[in-house]
């Protein structure tokens, strides 16, 4: 496959994952769009050879995390209205939309590992390498993140 065709297919196949991960960090669709462009520009310029789609996928995850952390190392930007943005999305159900909003309301240290593990499908060891914390910490954060989601849900029911 020629390089241009390969690159176009890589963008088409992975753009949503990169955008969703960037949104998880930044919680602003315009910023996430910007980061997504930069990630693929880096891919374009990297000249890297990948062993397969999983290798490419993990590389994109890592670069997306680095882009988000480098560009916005500090909470410089106020969070956009998550609910308002979620309202614009065609979610499968209202419950899925609520879950997205609740996950995005979690602090970064919980929501990022949860999205990397439960949405992107990285193992806890892979998440640990990606966000550079010990695997035990990842597991703790996943547990606490789930607990927070649960308490949010119960709080809303009451």
């Amino acid at each position, binding site marked *: 496959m020629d390089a241009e065709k390969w690159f*176009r297919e890589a*963008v*088409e196949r992975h*753009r*949503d994952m*990169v*955008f*969703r991960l960037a949104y998880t960090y930044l919680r602003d669709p*315009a910023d996430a*769009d*910007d980061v*997504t*462009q*930069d990630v*693929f*520009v880096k891919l*374009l*310029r990297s000249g890297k050879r990948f062993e397969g789609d999983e290798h490419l996928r993990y590389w994109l995850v*890592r670069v997306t995390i*680095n882009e988000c*952390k*480098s*560009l916005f*190392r*500090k*909470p*410089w*930007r*106020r*969070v*956009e209205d998550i609910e308002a943005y979620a309202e614009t*999305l*065609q*979610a499968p*159900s209202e*419950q*899925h939309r*609520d*879950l*997205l909003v609740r*996950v995005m*309301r979690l*602090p970064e240290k919980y929501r990022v590992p*949860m*999205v990397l593990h*439960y*949405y992107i*499908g990285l193992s806890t060891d892979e998440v*640990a*390498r990606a966000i*550079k*914390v*010990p*695997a035990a910490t990842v597991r703790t954060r*996943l547990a606490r993140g*789930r*607990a927070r*989601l*649960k308490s949010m*849900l119960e709080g809303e029911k009451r």
Partner: protein
Amino acid sequence: MMMNTMPGKRSRADMQGAFEGMHASEDMYEKVMARASHRGRKRGGVPKIAVVATIALAVALAAGGTAYAVLGGDFFFRGWGDHGHGQVNTWTVDGDGVYSRTFGTVDEGELSDELKASVEYAGRAVEARGYTLLVESVLVDDLGCGAATFTLSNPDGIKINPAYGVPGDAVFDDTSDLRLLRVDFGDGVFANDVVVYDADDSTDTKVRGTIYFNAWNGAGSVASGIKWVLTFNNGDVATDAFVPAKTVKSREFKTADGVRAMVSPIALVIDGESVMEAHDNLYGVDPLIIHNLSVTMEDGTNLVITDDDARAYNIFGSCLRGEDGVNLQIVYRPTQLLTPDKIASVSASGDLHHTDGQNEAWQAEFLPTA
């Protein structure tokens, strides 16, 4: 349907469903190609960018060399004062507490002649879609950092949303066709930048402010020429490149174990390479996260640059630049104009990241080497 919050396949399915409606732009490929092409990089094809209309400002440029006097000396007051927003600005992040940024103060008596003489008149302008951007004065240092004052006008209005960014940052509203005012370099290397607007001098149709920037690859990129770019929803326009003729020098500081910091009047840079040389088995992507950074002046006064504990970030942005493990540097652009010759020490604390995933607390005092 009841959402599951316990581990397992159900959680994965729920999470997949939650994200299902969220999509990147359908024209992402075209956007990426346009961005890549416009930054003067490889790849052929026709970038989908707007026609660039540059305006020659020959008369203004004639003032060139003795910029500070010609500009009326307000460059430093515009760039390192309070921008009309008050000295201390606070904001809340998602229930995570109150954050603050304290702007600096400028004492004209403290500005050295050398520093004043380093300000250059850029006189670069671009006009597109009703917007006119004029970049007025520029100051760059030998660390690849810089600041430029500008005026952006549009008779049909400019939509800055004060709810976005840190108070004082110029971030355009979602409904604005203009998305970013940013910096590019002649060699195509990425820039990190922050724009702050001057509240007292800006109106609905005119924004005055300062753009603070640094190059990912350091001073070489700045020397290749600086372009100021208006990024619209579907394309960019850029000024002609401005190649600085003057550079403010930085001063070197070191810890006892050889970690380097460089301080210029407008930036403070921690050298990641020397951190990795001083400590074994550090994770090359991000070997050091700094939580607190301050400088102590010779008269004993302490200037906080960042303090995670107090959630104080007295900077015009910071970034980690360089590639993984190569030429890594942590760059800070303080809100207070610095006088490196009068700094007694730089203090920092943070975490070192090891390859085995363990973190190690790190504390350092940097002293001047000359």
